[in-house]
């Protein structure tokens, strides 16, 4: 596999355009967590023309709901959840300037097209490797909706957070290409 590429959030267009499906990437900087319930709220705020609790422009959202952090730790295990469930909300966030998403699994063809057209990138993290991934999280604080429990939006500081490019800006699609290549 290729040597990993280090990128820092928030993401610039130059960085985004250079990424290709299958590239190994290490993410640095600040990313935000949001999964089902938080997406519902974020999309509703956008539809109603309200401000989001964080500025999504050029940011990355990580689809995860971590396990509780035991005392003295930064965060509990935090692996990706299924991305396709966020598809109904993704277009609104892309319109608001979101440029990166981390999750597991293939997006719908419509969402993959919307991501590409927005010049954004969808990254895949290894589902089921939650302790390994949490080790790249150096800081975690509540950004919004603490009443959602495990679905609270967190602001994370990450170092070398390991992902693969799954949907790139030029039509590449890692899941589809991978499966088609190995199907017998």
């Amino acid at each position, binding site marked *: 596999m290729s040597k990993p590429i280090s990128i820092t959030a928030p993401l610039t267009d130059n960085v985004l355009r250079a990424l290709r499906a299958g590239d190994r990437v290490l993410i640095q900087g600040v990313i935000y967590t949001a999964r089902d319930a938080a997406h519902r709220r974020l999309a509703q705020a956008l539809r109603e023309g309200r401000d989001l609790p964080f500025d999504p422009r050029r940011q990355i959202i990580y689809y995860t709901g971590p396990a509780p952090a035991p005392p003295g730790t930064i965060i509990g295990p935090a692996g990706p959840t299924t991305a396709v469930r966020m598809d109904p909300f993704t277009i609104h966030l892309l319109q608001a300037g979101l440029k990166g998403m981390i999750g597991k*699994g293939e997006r719908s063809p419509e969402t993959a097209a919307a991501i590409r057209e927005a010049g954004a990138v969808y990254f895949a993290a290894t589902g089921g490797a939650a302790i390994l991934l949490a080790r790249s999280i150096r800081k975690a604080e509540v950004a919004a909706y603490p009443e959602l429990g495990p679905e609270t939006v967190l602001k994370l500081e990450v170092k070398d957070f390991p992902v693969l490019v799954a949907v790139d800006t030029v039509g590449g699609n890692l899941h589809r290409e991978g499966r088609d290549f190995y199907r017998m």
Partner: protein
Amino acid sequence: MRSVRAEKVAEAVARLYREAACSPDPGLEAALAAGRAREESPAGRAVLNDLIENLRLARQTGAPPCQDTGTAVVFLELGQDLRIEGGDLLEAVDEGVRRAVREGYLRPSIVADPLRRENTGDNTPAVLHLEIVPGDRLKLAVAAKGAGSENMSALKILTPAAGEEEIIEFAAAVVEKAGASACPPVIVGIGIGGNFETAPLLAKKAITLPLGERHPDPFYAALEEKAIERINRTGVGPGGLGGRFTCLDCHVLAAPCHIASLPLAVNLDCCLPRHQTATL
């Protein structure tokens, strides 16, 4: 008449659920390593490396290997000559789940109502299956069942004209459609026969069987082997990134059924089979 205190049931459920969530099937690491040795896809091998390293970290830290510590699925086989004393059996099960979540830092993932969706905060209630059996013991089996794989499971009522091939093709289609969402390599539980409501329960019981165990009936053992071989040809691969190692294991459970039906349920479990049993 033999008796067991309800508190003992709560203690057992707490221990089993926590152990299940934190320590997957003991054969898992070896099975993943064997799959890695055969995997042709570099991305697939990288995913298997991550999963094996993550299991090592789980062992070292005692933390759950996945943030989704599941729905607590509890199977109770209650001997008809056993009395539960000093409390309500069903409440004892939920109390066990509550304790495991609090003490083990498991994730509360249950909402009280499917449409209004407010989190109960302690992962209760458990999904409970109770059977009355001969004897004076209580057998408990607890699974921590993740939603990623559960969401992709499926039920189909075939007609008796359908054969093995149709069953295997259906299972392969379920795995293919699930792709990365079920966190492959997956465990495929196939429930055949019974009724509209029993086939899924058979499939659920099937995924709680130990890794590598084949059906005692050679006919069904052969069906399991054929299903594994077919599912590995879908190309889904580890992490759904394409590859050869898609099926970690497959278990079939069958039951009598009506002359007009052939119910079929496929329940998927992910690369983290998590279940524990005990007898009181």
